[in-house]
């Protein structure tokens, strides 16, 4: 029994905004963007944020089971929807973890995700710990960050047991090097010159951290098989590798071409990607830069092949839809103010007492199962819905999130307000019993038909702009 990573997973949103569309729209203003129009960046749907993406990554990591005994949830991001409400608590609720689970939010630096993972590995609880990192950075139109960023998440389950990768060593540095910052209440990052960030930042802070890491483990750079160095500045990862003797071939793809830099999530996204490829015994280094540096050295164990994520980074990268509508990206991220029409004006005030009372139903997607006739039903109710039963007070909690469903009826609605019309929704019937009239997401109207298999995903239901509250519920997407 060793301490290490027990399972891993990731999430990358389906839409891939084509960088050439960003450049085409903005190079009139900044001609330097013209050279950055290659590839695509992951683009979250309007109903995704760092919490929903963390839930998706956690589900990718844990699979349908694998939740028993989780002792803590750590959530890292600089784009959390709530400044004061435990965001990790929403993730724990969506995963139906018990109230005895500890919850922690980590933020304020791009290395928050790797720091959280490092701390979890260094001081394991008696129970496994879930570390999730997610990012959906808001970026100004025509900014280099808009082009280089991507939305995404990753999650790792850490603890004692049959680890797929064990911790060999860790190292850290804290240096108040302000390459960029985002002040309180300001939506966008402010950045300094790239050349200074490269020369004085990455190249002077990361190599000594890595040298210390390797020294602690008593290995040389040449022994490293996978080097995860999230940085989209050109040639930085290669230059750092060279400085510490890591072979050029070990430098992992930073996913800049097909995904973009997922911020706080990116060290974990790159690590999850590396774990997909790692063979038993291989050494992996993952580093994160941000007002200092964190670095971990891991060794893949013989169990590396035994726990694969449901989709993993490569699976999510393959689940891909090209997006060429830059206006849609700006609108989803509220960079531009779109006339949304009177139907969007409906007051979305939330009765927090009702949300709390119904938290297992709304956040956990828990319905009922009649203990008399066995009928599954959503929501759980006092009287069984089966007309041949109608037993009173007979239902036990029944999670629906992982049940297989099929479309019974559907429409694509141009009338109701949606941030991404037409609003697609319909009745989804679960094979095991029960049904729900539910919103669809990430589906194109022409792909929908009666009988189509659907998966349940945790998403933003709506946002109350007046009070700054985000409501979550579950939606159906193509399986």
């Amino acid at each position, binding site marked *: 029994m060793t301490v290490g990573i027990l399972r891993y997973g990731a999430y990358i949103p389906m839409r891939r905004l084509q960088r050439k569309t960003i450049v085409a729209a903005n190079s009139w203003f900044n001609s330097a963007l013209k050279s950055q129009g290659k590839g695509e960046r992951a683009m979250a749907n309007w109903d995704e944020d760092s919490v929903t993406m963390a839930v998706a990554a956690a589900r990718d990591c844990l699979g349908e089971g694998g939740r028993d005994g989780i002792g803590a949830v750590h959530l890292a991001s600089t784009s959390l929807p709530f400044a004061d409400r435990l965001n990790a608590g929403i993730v724990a609720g969506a995963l139906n973890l018990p109230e005895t689970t500890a919850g922690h939010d980590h933020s304020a630096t791009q290395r928050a995700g790797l720091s959280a993972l490092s701390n979890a590995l260094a001081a394991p609880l008696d129970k496994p710990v879930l570390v999730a990192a997610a990012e959906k950075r808001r970026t100004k139109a025509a900014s280099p960050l808009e082009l280089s960023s991507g939305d995404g998440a990753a999650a790792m389950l850490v603890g004692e047991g049959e680890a797929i990768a064990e911790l060999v060593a860790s190292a850290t540095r804290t240096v108040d090097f302000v390459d960029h910052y985002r002040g309180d209440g300001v939506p966008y990052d402010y950045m300094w010159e790239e050349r200074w960030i490269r020369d004085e930042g990455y190249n002077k802070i990361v190599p000594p951290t890595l040298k210390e890491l390797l020294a602690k483990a008593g290995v040389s750079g040449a022994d490293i098989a996978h080097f995860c160095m999230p940085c989209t500045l050109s040639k930085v990862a290669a230059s750092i590798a060279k400085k510490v003797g890591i072979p050029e071939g070990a430098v992992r793809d930073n996913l800049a071409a097909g995904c973009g830099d997922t911020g706080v999530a990116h060290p974990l996204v790159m690590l999850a990607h590396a774990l997909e490829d790692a063979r038993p015994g291989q050494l992996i280094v993952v580093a994160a830069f941000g007002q200092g540096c964190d670095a971990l050295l891991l060794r893949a164990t013989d169990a590396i092949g035994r726990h694969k994520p449901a989709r993993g980074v490569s699976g999510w990268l393959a689940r891909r839809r090209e997006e060429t509508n830059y206006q849609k990206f700006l609108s989803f991220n509220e960079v531009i103010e779109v006339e949304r029409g009177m139907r969007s004006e409906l007051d979305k005030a939330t009765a927090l007492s009702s949300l709390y009372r119904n938290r297992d139903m709304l956040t956990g997607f828990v319905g009922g199962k009649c203990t008399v006739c066995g009928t599954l039903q959503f929501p759980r109710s006092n009287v069984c819905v089966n007309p041949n039963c109608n037993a009173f007070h007979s239902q036990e909690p029944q999670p629906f999130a992982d049940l297989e469903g099929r479309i019974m009826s559907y429409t694509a609605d141009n009338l109701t307000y949606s941030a991404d019309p037409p609003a697609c929704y319909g009745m989804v019937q679960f094979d095991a019993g*029960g049904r729900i009239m539910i919103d669809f997401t990430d589906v194109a109207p022409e792909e929908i038909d009666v009988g189509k298999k659907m998966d349940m995903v945790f998403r933003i239901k709506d946002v109350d702009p007046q009070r700054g509250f985000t409501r979550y519920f579950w939606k159906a997407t193509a399986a």
Partner: protein
Amino acid sequence: MAKGIRDKVAIVGMGCSKFGERWDKEADDLMVEAFEEALADAGIDKNQIDAAWLATAIEDQHVGKSGTPLSVALRLPQIAVTRVENFCASGTEAFRGAVYAVASGAADIALALGVEKLKDTGYGGLPQRSRGVLNSMWWANASAPGNFAQLAAAYRAKHGVSKEDLKRAIAHVSVKSHDNGSRNPKAHLNNKVTMEQVMGAPIIAEPLGLFDCCGVSDGSACAIVTTPEIAQSLGKKDIIAVKALQLSVSNGVEAQHNSWDGSYFATTRVASRKAYQEAGVKNPREEIDLIEVHDCFSVTELVTMEDLHISPEGTAIKDVLDGFYDHDGRIPCQIDGGLKCFGHPIGASGLRMIYEMYLQLQGKAGERQRAKAPRLGLTHNLGGFPHQNVCSISIVGRYGE
């Protein structure tokens, strides 16, 4: 089954305002417009009314809550006035209240009035409004057309019908109703439309296009009811009597239990069966002469033809395309233009349908009068969504027949 109310209550007066975008009128004005016609028709004094029912659904859009808006608008003599709301069946619910009051002997003469002023929202379609504290947190972000449109997907899947064939049949429904509406001066829309126009119109909710959806309008309709004996004492001949009134309300089975396939209205099947029994109708396809159904959307009307047990299951498309429900067919449906041409001022719609039956049964429907005056007419309202709704059915006919 209970004895029912067949022939216990007579309609002695009815009124209906002009429906439409009544930009220059308040709801009060519309109530008075319908009421004055009914009062003159009944030949009674306003102070003879013992009790009244007001139907309005989206009261926050116009008159507000309670029975007071009706009592104040008509200056009723401080009698009992009850406001009812039961989705789109509200108008028929007011009628049921008034009819039951007379049938029970609690009132000699009762008034049912429905009104809705929907055109103060600033946009087309029904107002977007809260669906309840908890419902808002999980119900699909659905509109009325989006909910009803799903009948099409489920009906096609069940009966193996192609998209094109279904689209053609529901287009015929709308073409027929517009044709009927062109002969009705009180309808909101009086224009005829072609199959090409209907099938080529912009999509509101797949597969429903603009002309598959009823309009939204302002309007009011009302009925004055009493016992057949009092009606006779008022000098009424050829008395129109209520034969049946039934209401069926979903209990969550359609929304939550996998026994419903989404292609029909479970409530309509229950309410119509009970109504036929109450009215003594054995074979509706042979005995019913005229129907006004809740054609909020063309596809609703199509499947309702089966739910009323008039078209056998799976044959509504054939009946519709054969002209069975056209104004000159065997059982005209929406001979007045229906919701399609009247629009749907929610509280008023059920009473507007009964108003048309009342005129047709008396041979007073003007240009659109059925040549051979009908003997038995059925009206039908549906409120909510296919997967959770209320359905009301009324059957009216000549007293004693």
